[in-house]
């Protein structure tokens, strides 16, 4: 019902193009707990969509399913209109889906460039295109990992990506990540995701541990990703941040989708109500 209204509302703008990423009726059960129940969710190019909900609403479950950390029990995932099966984070990145986790997943002991290229270092035998696309196997990959790295090219690419995203507060890209501020670390983690020609970037609580100025930096960065025509998913508890950065807001409650709102046409009170008391299609535990 609500879906229909949404498509009517959005029929005159970008949302009638094909979604970059779409889940159709995905469910996930952990033992007795129905973590997700027939959730439809779509991400369009050039938009920031927020995923909100209380603890246990199923936000993380949905994201982890998309990222290939575990599979959905039912339903399907479509990427650029084609049905895909994602079995591991590596397969997700190969498609162009990158997740920036809450704890950032950076190696503190390595510098900025090393972190951005971790696991995909450029070596003497690889042209830039080859290292992005070719996934080498077995012994060939082990051999490639023993060739000298192209530090200068990697550093140039890292600097140019950071500049493109206007991440300019770094003193040097050769500083260990441990010496950077929370906002800078978050920016590096996001830039790392962008470096690999990703189409969809999923950010898990990107501003959770940040101060005011740093939050601003990161929110600006999130907007710039959408301007580069990426699909951006932001998970957050901070409605203030979400209203500032998101184009649409999808509310999950008890593993089900309540509704997707256009940010311009809703307000915090309505979203809070949906999070805490939104209408559900089925009452958990009461379905047949």
């Amino acid at each position, binding site marked *: 019902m609500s879906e229909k209204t949404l498509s009517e509302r959005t029929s005159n703008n970008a949302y009638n193009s094909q979604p970059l990423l779409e889940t159709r009726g995905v469910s996930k059960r952990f033992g007795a707990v129905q973590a997700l129940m027939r959730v439809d969710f779509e991400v369009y190019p050039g938009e920031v969509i927020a995923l909100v909900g209380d603890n246990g609403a199923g936000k993380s479950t949905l994201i982890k399913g998309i990222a290939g950390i575990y599979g959905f029990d039912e339903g399907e995932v479509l990427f650029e209109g084609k049905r895909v099966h994602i079995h591991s*984070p*590596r397969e997700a990145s190969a498609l162009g889906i990158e997740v920036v986790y809450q704890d950032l997943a950076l190696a503190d*002991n390595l510098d900025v460039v*090393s972190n951005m290229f*971790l696991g995909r270092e450029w070596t003497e035998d690889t042209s830039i295109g080859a290292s992005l696309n070719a996934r080498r196997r077995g012994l060939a990959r082990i051999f490639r990992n023993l060739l000298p790295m192209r530090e200068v090219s990697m550093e140039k690419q890292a600097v140019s990506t950071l500049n493109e995203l206007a991440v300019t507060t770094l003193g040097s890209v050769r500083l260990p990540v441990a*010496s950077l501020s929370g906002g800078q670390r978050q920016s590096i983690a996001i830039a790392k995701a962008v470096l690999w020609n990703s189409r969809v970037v999923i950010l898990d609580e990107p501003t959770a541990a940040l101060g005011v*100025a740093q939050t601003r930096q990161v929110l600006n960065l999130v907007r710039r990703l959408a301007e580069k025509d990426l699909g951006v998913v932001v998970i957050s508890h901070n409605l203030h941040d979400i209203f500032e950065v998101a184009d649409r807001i999808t509310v999950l409650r008890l593993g089900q989708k309540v509704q997707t709102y256009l940010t311009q046409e809703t307000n915090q009170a309505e979203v809070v109500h949906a999070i805490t008391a939104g209408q559900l299609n089925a009452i958990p535990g009461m379905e047949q």
Partner: protein
Amino acid sequence: MTSDIAAQRADHKQDGLHQRATLKTLLFQLRAFIVLILLFAFFSVYSDSFLQPGNLIILTKQVAINALLGIGMTFVILAGGIDLSVGSIVGLCGMIAGGLINEGLVLPMFGVVVYFNVWIVMLITLVVGMIIGFANGIIITRFNVAPFIVTLGMLYVARGLALLRNNGATFPNLVGDPALANTGFPTLGTGTFIGLPFSIWIMVAVGLLAVFLTLKTPFGRQVYAIGGNERAALLSGVRVKNVKTITYVISGLCSALVGLIITSQLVSSHPATGTSFELNAIAAVVLGGTSLVGGRGTIGGTIIGAFVIGVLNNGMIIEGVSSFWQTVITGVVIIVAVIIDQIQQKLQERSVS
């Protein structure tokens, strides 16, 4: 906008602090090297025979053994592991090389005994070392057992196999037999090149190769990443299990190399060779500034650490310090090194935040 500028200013302030602390941290980072120079100067002044070329060569020969084991150990420790089995692998590989030279490879099903050329013997021995390291790595990564436990078990298994190889007896006089075309094994231990024993050259070559691997290749970078944050490495697409396994293979290979060198130097293989070598290797790694939790350390540091232990032992022997006291002093030096390491960590954290 103002807040952006404020944030930038804060960052610049951080940079300034960073630079001011650099000299202090540099001195701390070079501490093993400074200690080495001090020890060297001390023994040079107080002992007439310490600086004799003959003594320095003997010293470096002893250091080479420990440094080679330490280099393999550094890879393992950088990736957050530990390898307690290296001493036993030294013993087992020595017994395998000795057995192949003296008894050949007995193939009962064909009723023949095959004797190999010395080069082939060494190759087989190195492969055996790598296989044991591979077994360590596979058990640790695929069955999720703590490295300490797996390699402790392997310490017993490899030592037991070394003893079983010849029922606890040695293989003496490994000179080979011209009739079997397998002579020349002792050359590895006694031969020299530009006046320096082969073992020293092997240490130099393996050291350079290891420096290249750790600093210049994706493999080395990934080893550091795993030690720093294993989950981050995994999520970045690093094949964490494979990389960790390879570190144990390298350690096994280094141990086999040491087994060959010692066996060749003694021209006989004894099953108890290498007992407690793993502890000397770990001591060299720690003295060299490598963190036992992984992610931080260098190959150069380990080699310096091995030299510190070597110079200390050599100097004390020349000075006639009781060997019991030598053991005590070595232990104290190791503990002090770790304490200084902790202080350095605190210093660095303070300079950052």
